[in-house]
């Protein structure tokens, strides 16, 4: 059995505090609200060049810089930076840790507060309320207003980040000039909920989880959380990508010995699992996966996805990847068709890639050109 893993160290994140708190879809008000965020580039005098990047399930606000905890490069450095598709020489880029996250925004790992906003001297843990993608977006809206920005030139995100983009465009259409939902869907499918449930079940089954109160004895449910990550990681890749990267190769052996054989792919997944638990909170994982499962934009608008966008002036760029089976192209096409039905201005490309869902994070030149062209077009039209 591996040695117990202590909770990851506290890092001082840049945060905006909102004492008035946030009213959630579940009916609760959470106060105060903290939104941890990072910005890149410079806000122009007209405050018209802001681009909000929304991160995915296990991402965070460190989109284009070395991560303070892991020391690894930002998760979207191929997209965000000087001269990149989201050009920080031209745009003021904002990325916030989602509500319910574990990198400084209000979430299960932060101190629990009562209705008056008084700290209770313990983390929220599983007492953290059930939140939705729309709650995450409302928290980001507060940050954007706090930064003095009336309209975002662009809101961009992949996977769960794409869900937030769709929610932004549907909930605050006047605030969004250009929306780029990438490798995403307007609802979380039964298959995706099922995979999430496997991950949650693994966490629940770990004795170290202790009904969510693992913070009491300074441990984390590392085994459960790492299994959750391993399962999820498989869904981010394609069969072809796994074959290309690992095939049936063995670790340190050329043939099966029937003793302690370890396939390369096993070793890779274990590594993914064990590094993940050092940077992510298990209760956050439970909270955020649940928020994704709740997501159904059409249901929020009387069952008709098009009515979520009726009359919108927002320009859309939708992109999917051909080998993504977690958020398949058909889901993106459904978004595009709903946008067409709403007579919205929309671009759509399906990028040919064998890298699975992960492709949106990787080096895909066609995708980068298309996204960069879309944002540059938005900027030209606004006069940035």
């Amino acid at each position, binding site marked *: 059995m591996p040695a117990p893993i202590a909770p990851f160290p506290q890092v001082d994140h840049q945060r905006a505090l909102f004492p008035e708190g946030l009213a959630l879809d579940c009916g609760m008000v959470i106060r105060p609200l903290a939104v941890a965020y990072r910005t890149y580039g410079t806000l122009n005098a007209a405050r018209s060049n802001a681009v909000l990047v929304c991160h995915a399930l296990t991402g965070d606000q460190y989109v284009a810089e070395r991560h303070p905890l892991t020391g690894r490069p930002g998760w979207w450095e191929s997209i965000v930076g000087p001269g990149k598709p989201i050009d920080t020489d031209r745009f003021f880029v904002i990325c916030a840790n989602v509500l319910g996250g574990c990198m400084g925004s209000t979430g299960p790992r932060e101190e629990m507060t009562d209705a008056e906003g008084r700290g209770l001297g313990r983390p929220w843990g599983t007492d953290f309320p059930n939140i939705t993608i729309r709650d995450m977006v409302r928290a980001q809206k507060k940050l954007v207003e706090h930064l003095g920005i009336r309209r975002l030139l662009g809101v961009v995100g992949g996977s769960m980040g794409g869900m937030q983009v769709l929610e932004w465009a549907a909930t605050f259409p006047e605030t969004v000039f250009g929306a780029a939902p990438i490798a995403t869907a307007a609802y979380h499918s039964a298959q995706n909920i099922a995979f999430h449930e496997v991950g949650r079940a693994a966490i629940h089954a770990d004795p170290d989880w202790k009904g969510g109160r693992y913070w009491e004895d300074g441990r984390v449910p590392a085994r459960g959380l790492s299994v959750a990550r391993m399962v999820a990681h498989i869904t981010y890749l394609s069969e072809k990508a796994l074959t290309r990267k690992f095939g049936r190769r063995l670790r340190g052996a050329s043939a099966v010995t029937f003793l302690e054989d370890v396939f390369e792919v096993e070793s890779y997944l274990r590594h993914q699992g064990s590094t993940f638990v050092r940077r992510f909170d298990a209760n956050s994982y439970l909270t955020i996966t649940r928020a994704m499962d709740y997501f159904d934009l059409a249901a929020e608008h009387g069952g008709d996805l098009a009515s979520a966008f009726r009359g919108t002036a927002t320009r859309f760029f939708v992109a999917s990847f051909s080998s993504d089976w977690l958020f398949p192209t058909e889901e993106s096409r459904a978004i*595009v068709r709903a946008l067409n*039905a709403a*007579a919205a*201005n*929309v*671009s*759509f490309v399906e990028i040919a890639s064998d890298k699975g869902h992960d492709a949106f994070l990787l080096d895909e030149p066609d995708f980068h050109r*298309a996204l960069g062209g879309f944002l540059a077009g938005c900027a*030209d039209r606004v006069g940035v």
Partner: protein
Amino acid sequence: MDARTPDSIRYVAKNMRLDLRLIAEMIPAGAKVLDIGCGDGALLAHLTAEKGADARGIEIDMAAATQAVAQGLAVIHGDADHDLAFYPDGAFDYVVLSRTLQAVERPREVLRQMLRIGRHAIVSFPNFGHWLVRWQLLWTGRMPMTETWHRPWHETPNIHPCTIRDFFDLCALDGYVVEQWLAVDERGLKAPWKRSVSLANLFGEQALFQLRRG
């Protein structure tokens, strides 16, 4: 509607095919346009830059669609047979289908959709009634191979060829009003047979029609 036109769009607009220029001439400033089979977006770019149009496109070829999107144009990857049904009635002033009608699965349905979602339809297609096509079939007994019809029968995407006369008949059958039409040569230059359908059908390599619902 848009305050400024991106430079990339101006660049694409300059390099437009001649037949697209003829189509562009038919479209008034500020119109809402859908270009089906828009390629890399040359017509869209022209209409956006020169006419202040709200121009959008559908393109079946992924590389071309990506190219158009990268220029900042509103183009979706899709096709005439499957994607038109999702647009609302009367969403556009003009719906354009250039050199594509003969390659779609259901031309009659595509036309019906075009005139459902647009007030006007602009359609261009290669004329199978051209004298060279007729002559080759008559003289050699084989499928014609011309500058326009240049792929062998087993490889051609053009599964629904028609003549100018055939097209007039279809318009009459479905009650469409032909607002204007012309026959053009392969490079898109206007041909002088406008007064006579028979002559146009014999000498026009391409046909260009503007229709509306009856």
